[in-house]
């Protein structure tokens, strides 16, 4: 099945990418945007989704500085999502 891992800087950890995007948007005329964070998206085909957690700990994320969420399609995705 196709799983998805969302990896983002841990709360409180410096996120320079998010800051840059947040500062760039108003200049392009986009207002009302705040709290921007940039992370990584890993999408993968897995046979055993119970392994995803361990994959994140060991390889996909750096648990020292990143949080992650694993999403497996246990139910239909909300509209607009892949």
């Amino acid at each position, binding site marked *: 099945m196709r799983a998805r891992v969302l990896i983002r800087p841990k709360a409180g950890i410096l996120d320079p*990418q998010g800051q*840059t995007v947040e500062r760039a948007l108003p200049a*392009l005329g986009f207002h009302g945007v705040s709290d921007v964070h940039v992370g990584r998206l890993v999408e993968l085909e897995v046979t055993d989704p119970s392994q995803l957690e361990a994959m994140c700990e060991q390889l996909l994320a750096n648990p020292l500085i990143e949080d992650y969420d694993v999403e497996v399609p246990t139910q239909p995705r909300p509209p607009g999502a892949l």
Partner: protein
Amino acid sequence: MKLGVVAFPGTCDDRDALDACARVGEAVPLWHADADLHGVDAVVVPGGFSYGDHLRVGAVARFSPVMAAVAAFARDGGPVLGICNGFQILCEAGLLPGALLPNVSLRFAMRQTTLEVLSQACDWTRPLTVGERLSIPAKHTSGRYFAPVETLRELDDGGQIVLRYVEDPLPNGSVADVAGVCNAAGNVLGLMPHPEHAVDELTGSADGLRLFAAVSAALA
């Protein structure tokens, strides 16, 4: 003959580019927040890590006021040279076709590269000879040139693929070993290697100076 060198926050090869320009003409620093090109005859968008390379290389810098002026200047036929991050910015800004993706090695890679000149259909290489080789260093993390197949064919047909890596190419995975491309009009050149770091035999090579000299001579 005035050559302007653009600096964004995070640009770090601007001093070398200014120095290279000063060897062939008058070098004028241009600031990202300033939409005025101060009457320069040519523009260099140098390398570095504008806006920290955050989000996507070149993505943020292209929206700065100076880039609007550079785009207008380029549309009027003014010579523009994008080096490394400058090349990435020109691609993002649509002044050059294609995009630069992360090296297949996923690492920053620095080499003294050998480049073959493939085309003179560009203001920056006109006095050079097709087939001749230049020794110019390259250094980057996102230097994998990509363009759709049809675009590549057009580029090739139009003499817009100006430089390619030969011998010991960088582990960047660039399609057809492309190192530099120009626009259809031939006034805008983007390349990943750094001619501004190759202007003095004392530091390894002076081959890069020839690109600057080409434009300077044409405009003199």
